[in-house]
């Protein structure tokens, strides 16, 4: 009765609907964790892990083939490399504009470098830390999603043989 659907690797319609509702929720929460990494617990690694988990949720609910049509692992790899590039470029800017590699050259500057007082803090504080957070977040989202996607594809190919 459901052999075609099972071959596609989809789960039932209930799981799919809930996954469709949870995917933007997990994604926006991941962005919240990445953006507020210098204020609340979180940062690039944690938000990246949550974002990769959102992609894994799509993989398990809709099947690998369906996800791979939309986003290939090459795309994720490019995303990851972009994150690494942003990280290194910002670090080298520190070498040129300030004293050393990875120097925090934006702190005490007007736009990003507010030093917060006691308690609440604005989002645009922290110098280059938010930019590095975003870079590492992109890197981790791309990297871990690509890992799970490749492994799932390989497992599927192995079963077809």
């Amino acid at each position: 009765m459901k052999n075609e659907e099972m071959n596609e690797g989809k789960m039932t319609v209930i799981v799919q609907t809930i996954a469709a509702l949870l995917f933007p929720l997990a994604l926006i929460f991941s962005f919240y964790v990445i953006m507020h990494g210098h204020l609340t617990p979180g940062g690039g690694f944690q938000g990246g892990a949550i974002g990769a988990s959102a992609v894994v949720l799509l993989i398990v609910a809709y099947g690998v083939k369906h996800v791979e049509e939309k986003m290939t692992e090459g795309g994720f790899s490019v995303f990851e490399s972009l994150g690494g590039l942003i990280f290194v470029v910002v670090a080298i800017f520190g070498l040129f504009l300030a004293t050393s590699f990875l120097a925090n050259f934006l702190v005490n500057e007007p736009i990003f470098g507010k030093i917060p007082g006691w308690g609440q803090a604005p989002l645009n504080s922290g110098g280059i830390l938010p930019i590095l957070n975003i870079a590492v977040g992109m890197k981790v989202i791309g990297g871990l999603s690509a890992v799970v996607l490749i492994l799932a594809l390989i497992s599927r190919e192995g079963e077809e043989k």
Partner: protein
Amino acid sequence: MIWEIIYILLGIGVAFNVLASIGLLRFPDVYTRLHAGTKCTTFGSIFICLAAMIYGLWKWHVGDKQMIAITIHTFFALIAILLTNPTGAHAIARAAHRSGIKPVKAVVDDLEGKNV
């Protein structure tokens, strides 16, 4: 007054959570265990979250402005629990039936032989 409400809510919540785990231990097969595990933990967690939300609201009312964040974030966790818990139970039940586990002492099984 506020503490009595919180005590009652926490009591109900922890009672249902303990009941859920006892049911998990006592019931005979996976489907009935799912009944205990899903319903009772969801219900107990709702009450625990309600206690936390009421505490945050009360603190906010007293004058600690930032404590409203406890209420909102707990509400998020509650929504996530309410969405994911029954779906997970459905997935496990379907997988258990497809992997060939029969319900114990079943008087009727309409699904038998329909799949695989």
